[in-house]
């Protein structure tokens, strides 16, 4: 298990929101640094190792409305990639629109969360979900599949 295996990829274009996730990670006592992608496109590039180095996080925390290739498209691309198909993707979005929620689950999101406007709530939510996904739940072993593919 590489160190990257234990990392979280945060797809987020807002610095404030990324900082909140960072703060939550500290509170959840998550030791490894977070990886950040500003857009859906960046996210895919990182996951596919287009920069040369294969990178496989434990999970993706995905914001929907990012510039360029947005979160929805990134999610669809992840789910249609054999190597990434089982990668847990948790959507964290401003939108409470039922259409968005239904669409994300249909595309294969593992969970959908609405970002609260109030900071304490926002922080609490991200802390809890990181704790849940990284400690409470059991995640799939993706490395071998990834290596076999590459």
């Amino acid at each position, binding site marked *: 298990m590489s160190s990257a295996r234990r990392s979280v990829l945060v797809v987020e274009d*807002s610095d*404030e*929101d990324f900082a*909140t996730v960072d703060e939550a990670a500290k509170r959840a006592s998550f030791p490894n640094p977070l990886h950040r992608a500003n857009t859906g496109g960046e996210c895919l590039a990182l996951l596919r190792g287009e920069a040369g180095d294969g990178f496989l996080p434990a999970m993706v925390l995905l914001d*929907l*409305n990012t510039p360029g290739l947005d979160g929805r498209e990134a999610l669809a691309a992840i789910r249609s990639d054999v190597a990434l198909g089982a990668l847990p993707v948790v959507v964290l*979005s*401003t*939108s*409470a*629109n039922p259409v*968005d929620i239904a669409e994300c689950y249909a595309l294969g999101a593992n969970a959908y969360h609405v*970002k*609260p*406007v*109030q*900071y*304490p709530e*926002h922080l609490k939510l991200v802390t809890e979900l990181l704790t849940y996904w990284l400690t409470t739940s059991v995640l799939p072993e993706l490395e071998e599949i990834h290596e076999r593919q590459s």
Partner: protein
Amino acid sequence: MSSGADIPSTPVWNDGPYSVKRYGVSITNCDSEPVQTPGCIQAHGVLFVLRSSDLTILQVSENAERWLGRSPQALLGQPVVGVLGASAERRLRSWLREGSTEHNPRHLLTLEATDAQPELELTAHTSDGATVIELEPPIPTDVSAPDYYALVGHSVGRLQGGQTLQHFCQTVTQEVRRLTGFDRVMVYKFHEDGHGEVFSESRRDDLQSWLGLHYPAEDIPKPAREIFKQLWIRPVPEVGAELAELIPLTNPDTGKPLTMTFCALRGPSVMYTEYLQNMGVKAALTLSIRRGEMLWGLIACHHYSASMQLPHAMRAACELFAQVVSLQHHAAEEQEHHQHRIEADRIHQELLAAVTSAGEFTAVAASMSHLLKVMQVGGAALFHERRWSMFGTTPTESELDGLRRWLRDQPSFMGSNAQLFATDSLSRHYAPAEGFAESASGLLAVPLAINAKSLMLWFRPELVRTLKWGGNPDEKPMVTGPHGPRLTPRKSFELFVQSVRLTSRPWQQFELEAANRLRILLMQLVVSQVERLTELNAELSRSNEELDAFAYVASHDLKEPLRGINKYAHQLLEDATLGDADQRKKLDRLMRLTVRMDSLLDSLLQFSRVGRVALRFEEVDLAEVLAEAVEIVEARQSEWPTDLLVQRRLPIERCDRSAVREVFVNLLSNALKYNDKPRRIIEVGYVVASGSEDSLDARQHNVYFVRDNGFGIHPRHHQHVFKIFRRLHGRDEHGGGNGAGLTIVKKIVERHRGEVWVESSPGQGSTFFFTLRCEEAGNE
């Protein structure tokens, strides 16, 4: 006067031969009078019936002695040569050999005066094989006889210029009067139902006008009409003059009475004579106007000052004129219809242009006054998109609704192949129409879409409304004949008026054609409007999608910075070094503002979604929906009231379940929120109301209500409460609603084609009512 059909009458003359002179007075039924075999002639001439083979006298009029100096008894059985002389007899024989003598009277010669007899004009024809000779004294003329053919030629020339049938007929009456010198000449037109109308008139200036008067069909009985289908001219030179009976009344060879249809001397009908006498007419002349086999009308000439003998040449001229009129009046009518069609088409084009440029079907209204004129109607009503547009004089809207319901159920009116429905007596088909007979005795209904969803109605007023007795109301009654005043123009007119109650002027073929052309045009407009609506709908859904996108972006893009602001305010507040209580208060306020803005954004989103989401209509148990709503509200509200009263179990209604639940949730939470009573009471129930009886949708429907004992709302705010973000209370009072709840309620109810309203006053609590009419909504 009763019609011959229902009264079995045994004539007093039984089966013996009829004589108008002997039995005329007993006639009570016009249609039974044997006018073609009257057995008598007018006594100003003599009539012989000869056996055609040997010219033996078989019958002779009883007045023979006066003109010929020999009694009928002396003449009967004798060869006619003894009366005519050898040369005239030869002329007669040779003419008979020529053929085409049957029913074709010919002025053959003039018998010169002798010691025994005056000069006499001889006319001959054959009837049922027997030879009929009519002898009349020549008409003395002061000046040399005018050239009647030239006169007729001149008159015919004048007929050419007619623009309309009316104009044509006016010329006819003027020319006939000029030609004959009668005091009054009328064109009497038969309508389709057989009744007659004085269509044009030329009269001596001092006479009353009878123009435009209508008379019942019985006034010119069937037998008389039959005669005029065969005969061009019928003179009665001296009304009420002595009659001379034929001796014997029947032909001894055949045992039959003489058919006198073509005899100029034929004894007139007793009814006709009485009618003329009642009118003070001294002499009459009738010409027929025919169209093919049909009798279209008559040219009726009356002379009041004296009897009037018409010279043979003039009669021939009149006959020729009547034939020309018969040939040409059809052309005049066609010309008029053609003009009418052109005018109608011009208006249709105008209408099309108006509607096209206005882009709206209702632009039809602009051309309506023209259309009413061209369709010759009193009013019209257009039903389109559930609304009536009325023009001119029409029944009321509720009467129209009833009529439309009835039309919708007529077989001819249903389905895609719906036909025009035209009647000149609507009440005969649809009894309630009697109530609005004045404005709409005549109906022309034009379907523009199936099942009367769109239709055009044309109305004609009751005919009697437009009929007026033209004569002097103080006209002195005359001494009338045995049938009393029945046989006078005035009485007859009144009888006609009675007979046409509840009927309008009939719809003519060319008018139906015009209505049909207009129908096609209107249907095209309806179709193009549907296309337009489809386009608008597409546009609307595009802009809805844009709104959706906007709301989405608003939620995200506005909320993101909002979250940032909230975060920094929070972090600043947590900073221990910041001790200033005032600044802490401001930061706290800042955070609360972000929360408030967040809630507003959520409402905006929810509201935009309510308008867009497709509703699913199904049978929904509203009792269940209410229970669910109560549960939701209970979860949100810390203090649930002591009492929720549900008067009776709510019914099952066709609606969208979650939308109506949203309605209850909003109304219940408002009822709770705006209430400071120690014991809050909310009452939920419904009442059954029926639509107005006259409206098309007279079904019963439920009116639901949610009543509270809260603050109440001043009536001046009743409309405002449904407006988005319109608040009546401070932001943080009463649980701080965001002002979108009732707007959402209104939107949902409206999408069910229902209505929502409030009854309330301050301190009295509020009752919110709403209705759901989703069946209609489902068809949208």
